[in-house]
């Protein structure tokens, strides 16, 4: 029987085993999809911009629209000063977007014979999203302290509050700040995980109904239409979550640039 377990898609497989000093550093399917996202985006961007035509062709237009989209996003939430982080935000946005989009392939085999092949969404693992969000937060803290010194701590002491209330407000602000990387990563991870499980559950219904080999198989049309609709929704979610992640990055970077709101 076909495997209809909706969780199998999240399994990590070793593609090329590698062990250094007792640590398992194997190249996994997750690593493969990260490399795939990075390499394909880099190649596409290089290809699209290598002509540098005054009147852009199709590829160059896409690259320019992407550039303008992210630059607008950075400028609108972190100001012109925030543009120094443009390369970071752009890479982050494109990496997450590419990862989400490669995850939308229901079946994307690894180019390695003898390995269990299935599609994989890198952002459906919380360790990946948490690493990305901790990277964002360490840049916020690092740059904030580098640029503002001790004034960065003003972030935790909002202006216009009577000093007596600092006892309550400062811990709340600190907790609120510490919760940012977690909410940032959990949101992306939960959206991708839930969406992909939902897709595979409904796809599993089709297989199970067909496997009855009776008239019940005809009912399988219903989950099929559901899967078609959900796939469209998942494409929207894949884009929207990459966008949300990037725009929140900009907002947090704005705090590093101007700690006193």
């Amino acid at each position, binding site marked *: 029987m076909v495997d209809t377990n909706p969780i199998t898609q999240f399994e990590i497989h070793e593609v090329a085993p590698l062990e250094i000093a007792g640590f398992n550093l194997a190249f996994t399917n997750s690593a493969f999809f990260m490399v795939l996202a990075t390499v394909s985006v880099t190649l596409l961007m290089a290809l699209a911009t290598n002509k540098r035509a005054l009147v852009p062709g199709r590829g160059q237009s896409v690259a320019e629209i992407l550039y303008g989209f992210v630059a607008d996003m950075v400028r609108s939430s972190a100001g012109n000063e925030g543009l120094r982080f443009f390369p970071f935000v752009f890479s982050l946005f494109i990496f997450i977007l590419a990862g989400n989009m490669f995850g939308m392939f229901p079946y994307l085999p690894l180019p390695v014979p003898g390995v269990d092949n299935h599609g994989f969404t890198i952002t459906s693992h919380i360790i990946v999203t948490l690493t990305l969000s901790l990277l964002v937060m360490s840049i916020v803290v690092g740059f904030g302290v580098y640029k503002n010194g001790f004034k960065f701590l003003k972030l935790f002491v909002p202006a216009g509050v009577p000093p007596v209330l600092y006892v309550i407000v400062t811990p*709340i602000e600190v*907790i609120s700040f*510490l*919760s940012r990387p*977690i*909410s940032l990563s959990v949101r992306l991870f939960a959206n991708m995980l839930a969406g992909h499980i939902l897709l595979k559950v409904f796809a599993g219904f089709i297989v199970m109904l067909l496997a009855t080999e009776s008239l019940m198989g005809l009912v399988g049309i219903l989950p099929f239409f559901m899967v078609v609709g959900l796939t469209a929704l998942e494409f929207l979610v894949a884009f929207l979550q990459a966008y949300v992640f990037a725009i929140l990055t900009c*907002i947090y970077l704005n705090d590093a640039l101007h700690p006193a709101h």
Partner: protein
Amino acid sequence: MMSNRDEPDRSNPEDQLADFEQRLNARLEMRRAQERKYDRQNANGWAVGIRYGTEFIVGVAVGAAFGYLADLAIGSLPIGLMIGTMIGFGAGTMNVVRAAKEMSERAQRDSQGADRG
């Protein structure tokens, strides 16, 4: 064929042009208003809900976790957890308020941009 209800003064070409522009603008404005209403409603209701939910819950969870860690360090088990949860509740609320403020600011800016463009 163009719509020929309220017939303009065809003898004067400039008048005709101005009239056409007026009608065109009215039509465009109507369509834009309709489109704006459309994407307000459907584009990101789900995303906004998830956003508020995670912001709040994560605030409470982080507060409680820190209270618990403080308890483990000092050995005062229920007290730090209680205080931490309460502070976390405040932080979660703050997160939600901040998210709402930022989203409404962005929506306002977007609609202004649409009016200008």
